[in-house]
């Protein structure tokens, strides 16, 4: 798709653009997802005055552009990257902003993006959902969706076919992680292969649900075919959050990589000045944990690559009886994921 290989031979990053009025929460979203910022710490984020690019490496390398709230279409087009180079554009709206101007502005960006490249994923995050009670939340959410779609059709009936996705999000619960995960999936070309591997794993291990999580951001890059049940997703996400902090507490060498317990020993940060996706393909240490939430079920965690972990829910009885089989399935799964990552890496022009 768009801009896979750059002329300079650098890694071709999937570009995501964040747009929205001032103080709708764009920078908070990035910091909470990718910079280990607690939701409460976002209060002190300074306002964004110019376009800022954040890079993040997970199963695919990302480049996320954070824009100041008052950026205009002209200013955006004056940058050397045309809108069509973005795989995804996320519009962040404050759920309490029901005024016309932000909607009009959003619509004009949507049209410009669509005219240039109809394949671009267009996402609207109706954000700060926690600020309203349930009833108002749904009302405002519907109102904003309806208005945006109406306005598009008013401009031209051709725009009726624009595909847009809406999501209610908040940094104070799991909705942001879930919405961003789903957005990310659309840019992962190898997603079907990852999903196949997860389906096979679930089938062979009698797992009712399995996620492949990005460790640091706690976004899931893929899951098996069974529907995502929010409590299960939330439990897995909270479990990762706990593990990410727990590891360094009792690790003998927390100083080298304070934030990620699983990376510290073999990859001192000094030796790896630029992190790249090659980390996904390098052998990860065998790391696993088990958690027994309710009597009959076990949540297993297995490190797959240095950045990805498999979280799976398996009936405790099955797990007790067939531990060896599950571990064997993990080995098979790990090999599959590594292979996919290698292919992905090569296609991106990363150092293999």
């Amino acid at each position, binding site marked *: 798709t768009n801009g896979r290989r750059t002329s300079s031979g650098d890694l071709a990053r999937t570009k995501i653009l964040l747009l929205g009025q001032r103080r709708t929460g764009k920078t908070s979203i990035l910091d909470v997802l990718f910079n280990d910022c607690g939701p*409460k710490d976002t209060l002190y984020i300074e306002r964004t005055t110019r376009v800022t690019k954040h890079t993040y490496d997970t199963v695919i390398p990302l480049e996320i552009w954070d824009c100041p709230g008052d950026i205009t279409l002209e200013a955006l087009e004056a940058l050397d990257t045309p809108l069509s180079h973005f795989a995804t554009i996320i519009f962040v709206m404050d759920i309490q902003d029901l005024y016309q101007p932000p909607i009009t502005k959003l619509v004009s960006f949507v049209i410009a993006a669509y005219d240039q490249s109809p394949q671009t994923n267009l996402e609207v995050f109706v954000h700060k959902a926690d600020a309203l009670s349930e009833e108002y939340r749904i009302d405002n959410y519907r109102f904003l969706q309806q208005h945006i779609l109406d306005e598009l059709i008013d401009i031209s009936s051709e725009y009726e076919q624009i595909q847009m996705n809406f999501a209610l999000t908040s940094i*104070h619960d799991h909705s942001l992680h879930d919405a961003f995960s789903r957005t990310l999936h659309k840019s992962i070309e190898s997603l079907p292969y990852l999903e196949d591997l997860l389906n096979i794993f679930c089938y062979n291990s009698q797992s009712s649900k399995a996620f492949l999580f990005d460790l640091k951001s706690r976004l899931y890059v893929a899951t098996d075919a069974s529907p995502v049940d929010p*409590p*299960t997703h*939330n*439990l897995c996400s*909270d*479990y990762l*959050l*706990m*593990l990410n*902090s*727990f*590891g*360094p*507490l*009792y*690790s*003998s*060498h*927390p100083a080298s990589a304070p934030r990620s*317990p*699983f*990376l*510290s*020993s073999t990859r001192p940060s000094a030796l790896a000045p630029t992190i790249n996706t090659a980390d996904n393909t390098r052998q990860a*240490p*065998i*790391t*696993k*944990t*088990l*958690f*027994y*939430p*309710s*009597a009959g079920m076990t949540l297993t965690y297995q490190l797959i690559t240095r950045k990805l972990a498999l979280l799976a829910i398996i009936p405790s009885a099955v797990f007790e009886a067939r531990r060896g089989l599950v571990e064997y399935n993990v080995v098979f799964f790990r090999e599959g994921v590594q292979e996919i990552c290698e292919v992905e890496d090569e296609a991106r022009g990363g150092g293999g």
Partner: protein
Amino acid sequence: MKKKVVLMGASGSGKTSMRSLIFSNNPASLTARLGATIDVEQNHVRFLGDLILNLWDCGGQDTFMETYLAQQQSTIFQHVAVMIYVFEVESRNMSKDLAYYRGCLAALRKNSPEAAVFLLVHKIDLVRGDRAAVLERKTHELQQESADVEVTVFGTSIYDESLYKAWSRIVHTLIPNAAVLSKHLTVLAQACSATEVILFERTTFLVIATSTPPPASPTAITSPPTMSPSFSTPSSTHTSSNFTSTTYSRSIPHTSVQQDSDPHKLSPTRYERTSELIKAFKHACSRVREEFHSLEMELDDFTAVLDELTKNTYVLIVVHDPTIETAALRMNVRLARKKFEELQGDSLIS
């Protein structure tokens, strides 16, 4: 055995919030909904089976404070084991707070001369800039106000682990057999080839006792059982209390020894961070109607098991020896269960 703990401090200083966090497993975000406490809210918290904390959360509005110090003085201040006085770090009216504090301290001395006094400089998260310096200044100020009374000062916030550190230290003074528990944890640690074994109370996840470091360390026998010297940070060392100032002077020279002989250099805030993390995760579990039972981890450079030890406690075993498997650790926990049930029963009745 019942121990009376009074929680004092100005209205809005955060007494009820911390109580609900520590004893009711509520998240910090919900505390904003708490109303002012009217008069005294008494709670009985069963702690470690036979120890019952009788918690008196005393509403801090002026009218209540006046009656505590006048008509109700003996009711409030008699038979107190611990008084915890909460000061907001950025108090709107510190001189008034201090006047009430002096009143309470005097009443306490008169009615319960043996009571221990803990002062919490609370909402420390609101300080932008150098927290340690602010805390040091506050500590000094509070010690001056306390004159010859021994006090222990902590900086706390409901938004981080500092609250668990302070409360772990407070309940520790109330547990009669803490040293015995610690001794047995050390035995368990040796049986497991563990670096460390930590005992938590079940509902609060406060640290009750820890194993002492391996005998290679010369400080193992003399240092206080639960708090290894590296545990002390500025907030706990600046006190005027005899008890803590002795541990202070004792632990300072040992700190370097300890760290040299400790090959693992674990994070000094690990105990309170563990309490906080597990508590938060337990809460996350309950939100999705799951329960927290046990954990097994084989991480990059250590293995750990967190499991129920007795009806009222959880134990965390941390092993850095890669040859030890979690199954062996779980087996040892199972074997130790009976001993600890007995231990808990025995010495708490006396």
